[in-house]
């Protein structure tokens, strides 16, 4: 028996449309209307400003630990903006910009990171799953959603987010495999930001790209410049359209970079060089998109102030949230509370009446000069 080469051969594409020097590949430029471009640009600015504001709130002790998105705005918004409201969005834990695009009220996100479970509740009818903290565990859910959409004969597409580190988890591979076998309308968006906390990509996988992993599961995989919102949009548009047309799943690898800390409890100086961060700052997704918008004469005056006001109003609403009622901790655990929990609830109510239970944490405790112990300690 001879050794033969199996057909077909595989290939992985790399897509870049607007590079960090501002060069545009006009032939590949997606056809976005001025309004669409303005909306995308506004969302990118909002994503950045909100992120910076949240870091400050966390430093003041008003939020707990969270995962900043700085540098990943294009990966998130280029992809999520291809969805319809009837499509599904399945986030991991670093998708603030994408979640806001999908209509999560900012104050709700703030509440979530202030330790209020209420912040995890999607709006009525909103086809977005809540934040999933355990890495990669949300990916099979996306495949199940896509299967159900197909089963019901609806043309909903599912977009699922995850990181480079997540590609090491079994759940990720199992989800990709099921999606391939079932040929369901799901788009996997991997934000390869080069790091999983302190572990660089080269210690995470021996593959040259993450995109090529798709090939083993029988689906197309494409690597895009994740800091190029136009390239991300173009790749996602294609994948979403294909999924909607019944042509199955796609894996998109967005090559990007986490410019900030892993979470607000992390100290990146421990594991990565300042020069690397500097190098990626040159590729900031906002800088090049701003230049593009300027060239198209689409920049609006006062946009940053507008966005800051929107954020400030949301922060005000967040801070006006009354302290949580501890008794509601039993809500939503079951459709109907079983007797032993009714008893536990009554016993807690009695302690609260008698003043024996501690006060809950208020949403906006007095700012502290130094972070609380827990914040320094708590890492994801």
């Amino acid at each position: 028996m001879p050794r033969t080469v199996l057909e077909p051969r595989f290939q992985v594409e790399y897509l870049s449309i607007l590079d960090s020097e501002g060069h545009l590949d006009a032939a590949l430029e997606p056809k976005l209307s001025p309004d669409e471009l303005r909306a995308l640009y506004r969302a990118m600015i909002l994503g950045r400003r909100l992120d910076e504001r949240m870091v400050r709130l966390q430093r003041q002790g008003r939020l707990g630990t969270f995962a900043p998105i700085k540098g990943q705005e294009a990966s998130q918004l280029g992809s999520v903006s291809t969805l319809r409201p009837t499509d599904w969005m399945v986030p991991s834990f670093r998708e603030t910009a994408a979640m806001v695009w999908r209509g999560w009220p900012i104050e709700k996100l703030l509440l979530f990171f202030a330790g209020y479970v209420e912040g995890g509740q999607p709006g009525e009818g909103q086809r977005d799953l809540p934040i999933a903290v355990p890495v990669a565990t949300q990916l099979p859910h996306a495949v199940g959603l896509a299967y159900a959409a197909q089963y019901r004969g609806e043309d909903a597409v599912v977009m699922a987010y995850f990181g480079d580190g997540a590609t090491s988890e079994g759940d990720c591979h199992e989800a990709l495999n099921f999606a391939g076998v079932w040929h369901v309308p799901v788009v996997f968006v991997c934000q390869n930001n080069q790091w999983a906390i302190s572990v660089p990509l080269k210690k995470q996988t021996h593959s040259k790209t993450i995109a090529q992993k798709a090939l083993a599961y029988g689906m197309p995989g494409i690597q895009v410049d994740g800091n190029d919102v136009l390239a991300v949009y173009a790749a996602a548009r294609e994948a979403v359209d294909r999924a909607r047309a019944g042509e199955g799943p796609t894996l998109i690898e967005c090559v990007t970079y986490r410019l900030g800390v892993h979470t607000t409890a992390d100290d990146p100086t421990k594991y990565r060089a300042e020069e690397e961060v500097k190098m990626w700052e040159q590729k900031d997704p906002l800088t090049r998109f701003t230049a593009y918008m300027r060239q198209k004469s689409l920049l609006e005056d006062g946009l940053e102030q507008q966005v800051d006001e929107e954020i400030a109003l949301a922060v005000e609403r967040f801070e006006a949230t009354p302290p949580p009622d501890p008794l509601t901790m039993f809500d939503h655990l079951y459709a109907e509370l079983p007797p032993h929990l009714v008893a536990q609830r009554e016993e807690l109510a009695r302690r609260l009446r008698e003043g024996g239970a501690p006060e809950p944490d208020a949403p906006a405790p007095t700012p502290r000069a130094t972070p609380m112990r827990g914040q320094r300690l708590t890492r994801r």
Partner: protein
Amino acid sequence: MTKLNMVKALNLALFQEMERDPDVVILGEDVGVDGGVFRVTDDLQRKFGSQRVIDSPLAEAAIIGTGVGMALYGLRPVCEIQFSGFAFQCFHQIENHVARYRLRSQGRFACSMVIRMPYGGGVRALEHHTESEEQFYAHIPGLKMVIPSGPRNARALLAAAIRDPDPVVFFESKALYHAAKEEVPPESETFPIGRAQVAREGGDLTLVAYGAMLRVAREAADVLQAEDGVAAEVLDLLTISPLDRETIVASVAKTGRAVVVHEAPRSFGPGAEIAASIMEGAFLRLEAPVRRVAAHDVSFVGFAREKANVPDVARVVAAARETLAF
């Protein structure tokens, strides 16, 4: 003697065990360059190299699964799971294999390994970063389950766990990591796994606690002494499984009353096993039903509501008073 916090004390145990035994290896997420997200493995990669302190890819199942293979070969892996909330990703490896190889191979192989994980609340953290899941491991035959309460016993028990021929799941309370410093002897020290300690002697009532709840029980004992003139005996379990029933029963046989405190949800938690053990061993000495003070049976409440969920001194004192008044 030097005073160390629990992070430093655990780090010392790891360092000394690695010096003592070249078969000891560490693997887990971010344990190398970063020194672990809580710095428990700080500097160990620099001292022992990346072959012995391994920054693994992000996959708990493979951390434990490859740990099993290393242990079967004869190494002594110390696996770190970054947070106990993410150990469900490797639960099948722990239950299906870590706990069973000795039995399955009829003594030919064993998993002499340690699985370390931070657990528990009180640190204003997100979902899966505040839970207490010791009951799952305590329930698995073939495993040992250890939870230290302070720097010195943490250090001594971790060293004992590494030398133990059987697999040990080792929980470290995040709230205790930096809570207090304690004298820790410079030369290596072990405490026996499977033995509880009497943290405070008393004749009127027994408070059983472990991990971060030991402090709560101790403070409750102070309040009872000061306000009620009651002498509470406080037991620090240190090992959840195998449970030191002898020490618990001896104490309750003396006091006739017991309150068990834990951060894990109440139902089917360690308190149930402890109460049953007291019933079996000291029924005729009991003056009152055994009480449990535990978290409610809710999976996650968010840190804004956490204080109303986790046992505090007032709840333990109230339960003790009801027990005394029974």
